[in-house]
């Protein structure tokens, strides 16, 4: 059995739920408590692709900064893919995400990514409309409405990225 290691990064504004998403995906945990990520936090998770191949994701959760400029760009070096996280209840996190996406494209080129529209459990506070989402200019298949709280679509999003990383 072969194991491929892949470094992936979570990007998104402060408080969009990056750390919570990783905690949900890796340990199936959720806590309301907001723990500020200092610098960068790593986790790993093994995903079986088939009988011969597994992917080991090395997940870099980068401190909640509001722009790519402030994020130490060296943290992104060598990433095979990334998850762009947007807080669906805060419209302004979309602009942050757009900036970061542009930035990372310049830095790392055309690497695979998925977009997570997070806090999807907060239905009635949801602000993002289809028109907003269109601005992301991302194929629908790469968009996920996630909730770190309920866990919905979290695995699906990480999993879909892993899938693309095997292609």
């Amino acid at each position, binding site marked *: 059995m072969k194991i491929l290691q892949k470094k992936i990064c979570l990007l998104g504004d402060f408080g969009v739920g990056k750390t919570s998403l990783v905690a949900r995906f890796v340990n199936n945990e959720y806590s309301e408590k907001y723990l500020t990520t200092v610098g960068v936090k790593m986790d790993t998770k093994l995903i079986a692709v088939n009988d011969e191949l597994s992917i080991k994701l090395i997940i870099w959760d980068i401190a909640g900064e509001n722009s790519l400029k402030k994020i130490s760009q060296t943290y992104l070096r060598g990433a095979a893919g990334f998850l762009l996280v947007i807080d669906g209840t805060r419209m302004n996190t979309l602009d942050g995400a757009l900036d970061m996406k542009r930035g990372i494209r310049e830095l790392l080129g055309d690497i695979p990514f998925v977009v997570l529209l997070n806090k999807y459990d907060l239905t009635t506070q949801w602000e993002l409309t289809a028109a907003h989402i269109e601005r992301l200019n991302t194929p629908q298949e790469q968009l996920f409405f996630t909730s770190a709280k309920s866990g919905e679509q979290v695995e699906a999003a990480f*999993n879909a990225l892993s899938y693309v990383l095997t292609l």
Partner: protein
Amino acid sequence: MAAHLTEKTADTIEQDNAAFDMLIEQKRYQMLKTLLLKEEEQRLGQLESYFNNPDAHAEKIAQVLPQALQQTDTTALHGALSDTVQSCIIESIQENPVLYADALYPVIFPAIKKSIAEALKQMMQSLNQAIEQGFSLHRFAWHYEAWRSGLPYREVVLRHTLAYRVEQAFLIHRETGLLLHHVSLEDVDAQRDGDAVSAMLTAIQDFTKDSFAVNSDDYLDMIEIGEYTVFLSRGSYAVLACVIQGIAPYSLREKFDVILHDIHQQYGALLKNFAGDSAPLAVTEPDLQACLLAERKQLDKTEFSPKYILVPLMVLCAMLAYWGYDNWQFEQRAADYVRLLQHNQSIVITQQNYHSGQLLINGLYDPLSEHPDTLIAQSRLQADEIQSHWQAYQSLAPVFVEQRLKQLLQPPPTVSLTLENNRLVITGIADDAWINKLAIITPAIAGVSGVDSDKLQSYQQQIEILNTQIKNIAVYFMSSSTELTEDQAQKLADLVAALQQIQALSHSINKTPHLLITGQADVTGTLEKNSVLAQKRAAIVLEYLQQHGVFIDTNVKAQLGQLNKEGTTQRKVSFAVLFN
């Protein structure tokens, strides 16, 4: 005479003839030569004049010199030139030393800086060792430590007599921070995931480099955590991180550098082409094992002699006495201040003690009276001799508590608040925003021990419950099919009912619901095919809903399938409601 002549001539003539013949031969040869080699001769002449003209000669040599130097045997060339070059340089430096100093500064300065730094580090380390080992009281200290910690004496001794041991070695890919290979001592439980540690070490290096490094080739090369030291060596493709317990001698670092260099020499191609598969790098195991070194301490056997400690002891006593007196005086003044505070009825002192010449004091005060810190002025203490932490507190009588609650929470008219045995009971219907505020503010209100909000309902809650039901509905499809079968279509009746309820409720919160329909396919086949399938499935369900009286704004999206999941659970369409 004639005879004589004749006689004589016969000989001479023969000789003469021979000489003549030769002359003729020579002439002929000369002519032949001129005839045949005229051109060559001219050219030789030119060459000769060229060689005799230094200017022309130099010009030609200048043209071929670089090429000639490239082709010469370098060692021979070095041998031939070194003396000359040496004396040239010496002469030239003597003539103008400043010029050379300027030119060499960027090279030499960092080197000097580095070598001084390393020398200092080495000195510090040996100094530390000397101090540590110079004391012979350790046996006594170890017994005490063993008694205090409950560890076996033997273990304590082992820990102290082991100068250092390298417990783990990580070989890390420089570009990605991915772990290439990892070894550790048998008795070390590498509690943390080596991959995460590897990534973390890389991030720490990046972080320190970004934050502190002045020059682009300054790198973090050592991390100290408690009794552990991590040495980091850096190669072009990989970083070697060795975790050392104890006092890590600086010489270890050179050993690690050499090992990493060897790894690069042997497996350079593997390192360079690394794309996530670390299995082939298990070949570095022996090299990494070679990093796991250990050394015992040299223990000082000489007995403890009191005369060495007598003088320092006396000095120490004098210092203690002075410090004690000073301290006593300070405590008197502090006690006065505390009495002053206690005298004031709005102040409650919850904690007080002294620490390094400061009075640390915690307590409560009523914001209606003066702040306790303003009383310092009336005491004999200086403000910098006090570290205080005061918290406001409020009266806990139920009437006040209820009043404060109403003031803070501002309940909507549809809600009533009552206090029962210190518990806040809330009944009625409210907006979500208000309920959230309730959860944040209430626990902070003094005199409320808990909240009963079971009888409190929110429109949003009811909507969320319906939405959860909706999210749990999914219709499934056969492989590669977009046909909505009879039994699957039946599930959509529940969906239609829930959507109608949500529409009714959403009026109360002044929001418009939107339906999101997500189509999905499994991962067998191409991305393109699956993407189209997912789209079509969602579209077919939308058509069905519209035919059955659902008139909510709808967005349709497709979604990628997932790895390692049953196909049957993935070929589906699912739903959710959003508001704007």
